């Protein structure tokens, strides 16, 4: 991934590149979602233990994976920013947070809707869901911090530090919540144990995960373009763009 980046590391050159990439990822996401949903809701057999309700894992599991993956990517860009001071890295981190939060939110809601018919309760304090909830708070923290700081540069740096501190803590938090949960075996139910996987179910989940990934890339690229326009306001290259010059 590193080879061409130096060429595109300025907002001015990344903006058009991102613009070209978005349609590919958007269409890719749409197609993969269609395939994935067809597999998940059409092809995959009814589960022996959980009936039809289990099908929501085709949305729940991919969104949960993405919620964690996006946080790692956000931490990666934050580390790049603190190391190399490139504005675009900070903008990427800024663009990732809302998408990560949305993924986490979807994971929590679909997890609740899965839990209800399967285990009779919307919210069981199991390790994974509780960790997802804390992850949501971590995302909200980064978003809230950015909103609270007016100076963009201070916001970039503060959010970068926060994202990294959060990233280091995520495994610790997950481990501690798992520990807490296993010590209270009786009181908890594991609402997110995926049913034993027929290979078609696994395929469906992988396709949906890829779809979620493409979707996230498309949305984040679109958002980063908006961020670039907002923050590079006044730059000459921006005014030279056809879509801006015409307006």
């Amino acid at each position, binding site marked *: 991934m590193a080879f061409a980046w130096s060429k595109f590391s300025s907002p001015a050159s990344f903006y058009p590149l991102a613009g070209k990439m978005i349609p590919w990822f958007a269409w890719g996401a749409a197609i993969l979602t269609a395939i994935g949903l067809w597999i998940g809701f059409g092809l995959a057999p009814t589960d022996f233990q959980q009936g039809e309700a289990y099908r929501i894992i085709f949305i729940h599991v991919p969104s949960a994976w993405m919620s964690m993956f996006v946080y790692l990517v956000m931490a990666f860009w934050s580390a790049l920013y603190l190391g190399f001071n490139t504005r675009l890295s900070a903008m990427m981190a800024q663009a990732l947070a809302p998408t990560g939060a949305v993924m986490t939110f979807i994971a929590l809601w679909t997890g609740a809707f899965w839990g209800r018919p399967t285990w009779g309760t919307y919210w069981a304090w199991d390790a994974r869901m509780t960790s997802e909830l*804390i992850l949501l*708070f*971590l995302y*909200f*923290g980064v978003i*809230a*911090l950015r909103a*609270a*700081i007016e*100076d963009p*540069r*201070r916001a970039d*740096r*503060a959010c970068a*530090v*926060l994202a*990294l*501190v*959060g990233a*280091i*803590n995520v495994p*610790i*938090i997950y*481990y*501690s*919540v798992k*520990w*807490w949960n296993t*010590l209270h075996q009786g009181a908890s139910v594991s609402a997110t144990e995926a049913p034993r996987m027929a290979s078609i179910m696994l395929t469906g989940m992988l396709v949906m995960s890829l779809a979620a990934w493409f979707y996230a890339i498309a949305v984040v690229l679109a958002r980063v373009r908006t961020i670039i326009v907002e923050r590079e306001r006044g730059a000459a290259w921006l005014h030279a763009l056809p879509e801006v010059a015409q307006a």
Partner: protein
Amino acid sequence: MSTMVVAQSPATAAPGAVLPGVRWALARDLRLALRSRAELAVQLLFYVIVVSLFPLATTPERTQLSAIGPGVLWVAALLASLLSLPRLFAADYADGTLEQIALSPYPLESLVVGKVLAHWLTTGLPIVLLAPILGLQYALDNELLVVLAAALLIGTPVLSLLGAIGAALTLGLRGGSSLLALLILPLYVPLLIFGAGAVEATRSGLGATAHLSLLGAAFLVALVGTPFAAAASVRIALD
């Protein structure tokens, strides 16, 4: 010539020396805290009041209180810590001292450690001493109270260390203390789990060694890592 500049006074400490920075910050912050004893007393009172609220909201029944006791005492400690964290940097930020601290030849990390130590001595340590007494309100027996105190003793410094990062990041921001809570409380979760869990483990006969060791590990990691993050955050706030 440019070399003909004022000579450094012979008493100037070697830059990079760690302990003088810690000592300076600790001594000064303690002296300042002792001159605002009322503020410290109020923070402790907050702890007492919060702990006393839960039985009123739930039940005076002793077995149930005993079940929630360790959790309540720990959560209240977290909240008390949160309430006191802005004190760490806000006053210095407002009167210009923080700039002088950041520009000092001593490493900022060591000055931060000194401040955090002073903060713990005036906020965390009193809670460690007070909690076992309040634990009697929750019908916790002596063995549990000892474990509670030990867990708080190891855990409260970590609250101060992690809190320093949050306090520095939110310096001068609107909605500072709620934002600080949002940022820091998720990071406090493992401490809460291990700290309150230590008491539960003792109660159920499993023994608290594992929990206390994990708390100890968290303390060591925090001691080594958080000064750098907190110092970086202070510099960011001063930019």
